């Protein structure tokens, strides 16, 4: 029992202090009929070496993302992560600490969150960002709930360009509340067509760039949405677009939410990832999740504390702005370290490399005779039509040791045989050339 220190002597002596004859007697408060009599159907405990081997086998049965010829994104992106990120977050003071309830001995966590809030407010073009949400999908659902609280309205307009899983989570979250969700279709260019916003609409939700990779013209929405007294919510699927694209807040978005996994968080089979949520200061009391604020200690020195907690469930209970309790603290720390290492110039350069690789991939695919159905500008992801079927094209790609992208048949059957291709800074020119050959069926 390598994680439990008690020796038989310890147990005997402690029982004597407690005044119980044996360990079983400690459980006399559990009524007899509720005692579990058998032995759990769980295998016997294993040594460290055995567990390592077992998990090694399970790990070996999965493909790893990333590398020269990996083109699958669709909401989870393989990017380069500097070594310092894992080295730092492996520090036990970061990994094994809890929610910073006691600020005097949690300043490391608190200052890191404050730095994160600053970076995300600036990247989104808004005034305040919180200390993270579970993931981009639940952050979007919480943004819709927040808009409903602010406007006291119950109808949500959502672009068809929002990731289908995000839309699904949104529908789940709103299911019990009598909210109505209406779709905004995409135009022929791949961007959300303009919206007619009635005066019962709480918010319009647009994803930037959208699920099909297209960069939306958010400015076209701002005025219409605000004139109807609704809020504009921009949800960001690929946070690495933020250093390159005009911040949604500048386009008039009132809430910007999304997924920041791209900022140094492992692909991790889809989680844990890093949801974020930013808003205007006038709505701060409706913003769910934790917030860190600056203050001073008894000697006047600057320090940080959790603040505006009266919005939260541990104080307001059923009247809280949301039920979110834990956040994604460790992922937020990864992202803050990543953004600090990248810095102003580095982050923009990575974003530019993504743009350049994707543009090169678009050109090569077109040269191979494939059609790109949408004319809207894109960042690092785009749709391509394949000559036969996505499954055949992706199988050809696998043959060529290329992970070719997402088969859109299930999500967008109306597009015909289409694949969503993502090119990041990790893929190489040669990998892109192989992709083009494989998807088109041309000899490499």
């Amino acid at each position, binding site marked *: 029992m390598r994680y439990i220190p008690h020796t038989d002597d310890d147990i005997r002596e402690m029982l004597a202090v407690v005044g119980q004859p044996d360990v079983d007697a400690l459980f006399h408060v559990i009524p007899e009929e509720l005692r579990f009599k058998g032995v759990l159907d769980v295998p016997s405990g294993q040594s460290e070496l055995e567990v390592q081997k077992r998990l090694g086998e*399970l790990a070996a049965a999965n493909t790893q993302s990333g590398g020269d010829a990996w083109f699958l994104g669709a909401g989870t992106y393989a990017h380069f992560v500097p070594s310092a990120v894992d080295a730092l977050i492996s520090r036990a003071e970061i990994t094994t600490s809890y929610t910073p309830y006691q600020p005097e001995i949690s300043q490391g966590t608190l200052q890191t969150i404050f730095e994160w809030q600053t970076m995300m407010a600036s990247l989104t073009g808004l005034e305040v960002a919180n200390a993270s949400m579970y993931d981009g999908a639940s952050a979007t659902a919480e943004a819709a709930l927040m808009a409903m609280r602010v406007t006291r309205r119950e109808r949500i307009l959502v672009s068809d360009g929002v990731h289908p899983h995000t839309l699904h989570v949104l529908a789940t979250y709103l299911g019990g509340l009598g909210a109505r969700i209406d779709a905004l279709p995409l135009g022929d260019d791949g961007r959300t067509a303009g919206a007619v916003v009635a005066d019962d609409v709480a918010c319009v939700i647009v994803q930037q760039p959208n699920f099909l990779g297209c960069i939306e013209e958010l400015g076209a929405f701002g005025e219409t949405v605000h004139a109807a007294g609704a809020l504009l919510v921009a949800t960001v699927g690929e946070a690495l677009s933020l250093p390159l694209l005009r911040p949604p807040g500048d386009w008039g978005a009132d809430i910007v939410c999304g997924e920041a996994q791209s900022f140094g968080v492992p692909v991790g089979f889809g989680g844990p990832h890093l949801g974020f949520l930013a808003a205007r200061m006038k709505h701060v009391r409706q913003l769910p999740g934790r917030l860190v604020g600056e*203050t001073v200690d008894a000697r006047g020195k600057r320090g940080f504390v959790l603040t505006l907690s009266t919005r939260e469930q541990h104080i307001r209970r059923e009247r809280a702005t949301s039920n979110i309790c834990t956040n994604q603290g460790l992922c937020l720390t990864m992202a803050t370290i990543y953004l600090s290492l990248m810095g102003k110039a*580095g982050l923009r350069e990575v974003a530019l490399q993504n743009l350049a690789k994707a543009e090169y991939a678009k050109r090569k695919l077109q040269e191979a005779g494939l059609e790109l159905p949408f004319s809207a500008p894109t960042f690092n992801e785009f749709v391509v039509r394949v000559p036969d079927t996505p499954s055949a094209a992706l199988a050809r790609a696998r043959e060529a040791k290329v992970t070719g992208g997402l088969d859109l048949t299930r999500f967008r059957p109306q597009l015909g045989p289409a694949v969503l291709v993502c090119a990041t800074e990790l893929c190489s020119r040669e990998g892109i050339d192989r992709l083009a050959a494989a998807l088109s069926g041309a000899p490499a």
Partner: protein
Amino acid sequence: MSYEEPLVFERSRPGRRGVDLPPLDVPEVDAEALLGDALRTEPATLPELSEPDVVRHFTRLSTWNAAVDLGLYPLGSCTMKYNPKLNEQIARFPGLALAHPHAPVEEVQGLLELMFELENLLATVSGMARVSLQPAAGAQGELAGVMMIRAYHESRGDTRRRKVLIPDSAHGTNPASAALNGYDVVAVPSGDDGLLHPEAVEAAMTDEIAALMVTNPNTLGLFETHIARISEIVHSGGGMVYGDGANLNALLGLSRPGDMGIDVMHFNLHKTFSTPHGGGGPGAGPVGVVDALVPFLPVPVVERTEAGAYRWDENRPQTIGRMHGNHGNVGMMVRAYAYILSLGADGLRRCAEMAVLNANYLLERLREHYHVPFPGTVMHECVLSDRGLADTGITTLDVAKRLIDHGYHPPTIYFPLIVAGALMIEPTESEDREGLDRFADTMIEIAREAHDDPEALRHAPERTRLTRLDETRAARKPILRWQPPDAS
């Protein structure tokens, strides 16, 4: 050594870089021509630092945190137990850390198998029929559970049920989760013994009640001895019983929520199964259900085919939907799975036994020095209060802050709400007897100090880099981000 460390932005010097990238191997592009209006013109507020700058900054910041690896972290209800290093190593295996959620199932069979097995292990431990691993945290698991209860009632055409019963000792997330799914919350008072009584539940039970949400052991550290009868009452009134799994640690191998009449419960993998808490998350909140609720589980779930392969099942007509953009916090599942394999059936039971022994031992050592609001044996955590210190003017907050001076993270304070000045202590099973004795001695010393030298307590902590922080000021004039000095 104690450092001063500015904000990362204040360390910034124009022109420094912490990362270099390989040269672009494809033609450069004209971003302005491609993006037009959509191009960002003002760079974001990010620092400019070298790698050593960044490493020193975050290393220094980390030294200002208390952590389980530094010592006892007895936060009641948060279960801050030791986090095995093996689990951290395993979670970083590239085959686990870098698998892609949209990869074809045949390329991620190892992870699907892990999830399938973890589901079964959790079902076994809890006595539930099935488990969904998807919720990203305990509170999201609660929300999923309440949604399933609603879906169940609605599937039977039972639409009158608008209310949820919640004991006054409950975690704040319980009422918040119920409200977030459109339910009205009805508080049920605990008895003088800190327990929920059948009569109180019976009195509150109507055909408008969708569910009772209960934590067992409860937040006073007490086993709800009437749980079976209470479940019967709720069931016979047509309601469901939700079990908050925050304190499951105390029951492993000894008692199963499924046998108590609990219909749906969440697990906090980070509490019960030792996944580290990372300064506030990520957690993971799988949710287990009895047969009647299986059709409503969030999608997707993992199934095993007859051929022994694993696949996603999304085609479940009565599902409440999807709670997470992908498959949940899989990294936490990996750690929890490794932990369960390491402990096995005997180890899990030993965990609960030693957690309970430790809590009772501490309570026994402190009984004469602090007020104990409820008599009797506790489970894995115990609650004290500052009532015995009333004549000194010293409060729970002072005691907590003084503990910091002695190198301890304080217990949970002022919760549960039904005990004035509560101090809720959860030592967990990973603490040894000597450690508990040192902590008890310190608590006793502080109680003595409260009588002899109360001034010293009022100014605590004094041995930290910062002394008591002005939380009122932070809330009154919120400063929630750094602004460059030249910005007004």
